[in-house]
């Protein structure tokens, strides 16, 4: 049950709305708390309440969570109305090669081109450059190793494009899934042995 909201909290919640609206970009929770002069956990509670009120009323806007930052966007359900008036936000067609490279960067970040190439078994210069151009991937700095190679990681744009709030939200590749993969392979062996 949600507690009834007092005037003060309501005012803060709508101040939060104004902040998210005006900034446009994702706003870190810390900055929200600072602007409203409240603690971060109270700020988080406000974000959740505002988000809940948008959802329960079926509003046209929603709050995205991106790595501990929050951003207003339209709700996906509004897409059909929007394409009639607004210019579609630019989206790039990602080929299999780009998706493969992007997956590696997403899970292995910070990662060098050499590491990506080792996993893919092919040169990945072009793919990485394209992803940087699409702003899905960015340079994170340089590895303290011979040649000081560049390190790459994913951007906020990446999280937004794939509807992911944080890296933990990404599909699998946790250790459990890896185990599952291995087990599958082993099962196949087992079957093979039995079938012999």
């Amino acid at each position: 049950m949600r507690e009834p909201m007092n005037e003060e909290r309501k005012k803060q919640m709508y101040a939060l709305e104004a902040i998210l609206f005006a900034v446009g970009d994702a706003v870190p929770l810390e900055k929200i708390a600072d602007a409203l002069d409240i603690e971060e956990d109270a700020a988080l509670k406000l974000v959740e309440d505002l988000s809940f009120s948008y959802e329960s009323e079926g509003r046209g806007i929603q709050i995205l969570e991106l790595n501990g930052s929050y951003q207003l966007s339209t709700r996906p359900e509004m897409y059909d109305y929007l394409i009639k008036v607004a210019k579609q936000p630019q989206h790039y067609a990602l080929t299999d090669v780009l998706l493969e490279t992007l997956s590696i960067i997403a899970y292995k970040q910070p990662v060098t081109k050499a590491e990506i190439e080792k996993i893919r078994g092919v040169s990945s210069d072009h793919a990485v450059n394209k992803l940087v151009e699409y702003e899905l991937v960015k340079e994170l700095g340089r590895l303290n190793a011979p040649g000081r190679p560049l390190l790459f990681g994913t951007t906020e744009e990446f999280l937004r494009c794939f509807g992911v709030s944080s890296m933990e939200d990404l599909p699998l590749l946790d250790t459990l899934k890896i185990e599952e993969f291995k087990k599958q392979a082993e099962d196949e062996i087992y079957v093979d042995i039995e079938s012999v």
Partner: protein
Amino acid sequence: MNMQYKLEAFEGPLDLLLHLIDKNKVNIYDIPIVEITRQYLEYIEGVEWKNLDSMSEFLVMAATLVDIKSKMLLPAEIDEDGEEIDPRRELVDQLLQYKMFKYISFELKDRQVDGEKIWIKDASLPEEVAKYREPVDVEALCKDVDLTDLNRIFKELMRRQEDKIDTAHADFGRIKKDPVSVTDKLTKLTNFARSHKSFSFSKMLSGEDTKMDIVVMFIAVLEMVKIGHLTVQQKDIFGDITIASNLYGKEDRQTEITYAGTYE
């Protein structure tokens, strides 16, 4: 063997290997290396290579496969734990990892669809907000300095200023700057060269009174030598320079030259 697939169908050697393993329905942990290597080599031999980089990537894998194949014939190596090392192990790990990322990339592809359906907006800060500047905290600003510092700085400044006044030469007036341009000298030289077939450099200098005039006239002579309008000859060191004019008798505009730089 049926070569119905093209190289483009595979993203790289790992992709091709996974395909072969899948097609032959063999276990990834127990790759029949002889057979898979044979098929792999057969495949890359049948491809018409258009891209050298791509070809070398496939060839590196071919070498790896052949290497593993030969190691499989030798007695197994033993690792620190006394276990036999399977020569295929590294390749298997690599294949598994690659397979996993391929799987993830399909998952990502599915997710991408949702992301396309939302709009975000640009910042729209009201002008009053954008223009706002935080007031200066003067006290914090000055907290590390006091009057003594200020006094020391001022004294230092005054001392430096005194040092700057060189009393021995303080009475000399400012040095007058005489603009001397190469273009002026070139014009003078060109006109002279049109009416004189041969002349000495020292003759050219009559009427040039400052050192700068002489230097710039010399630069003008060099400039005209460079473009072939004059030729010079000097018989002895420090002797007079004899100048022969290639412009003698010519009046046309083509002989006019301009000079971009100045020595003013």
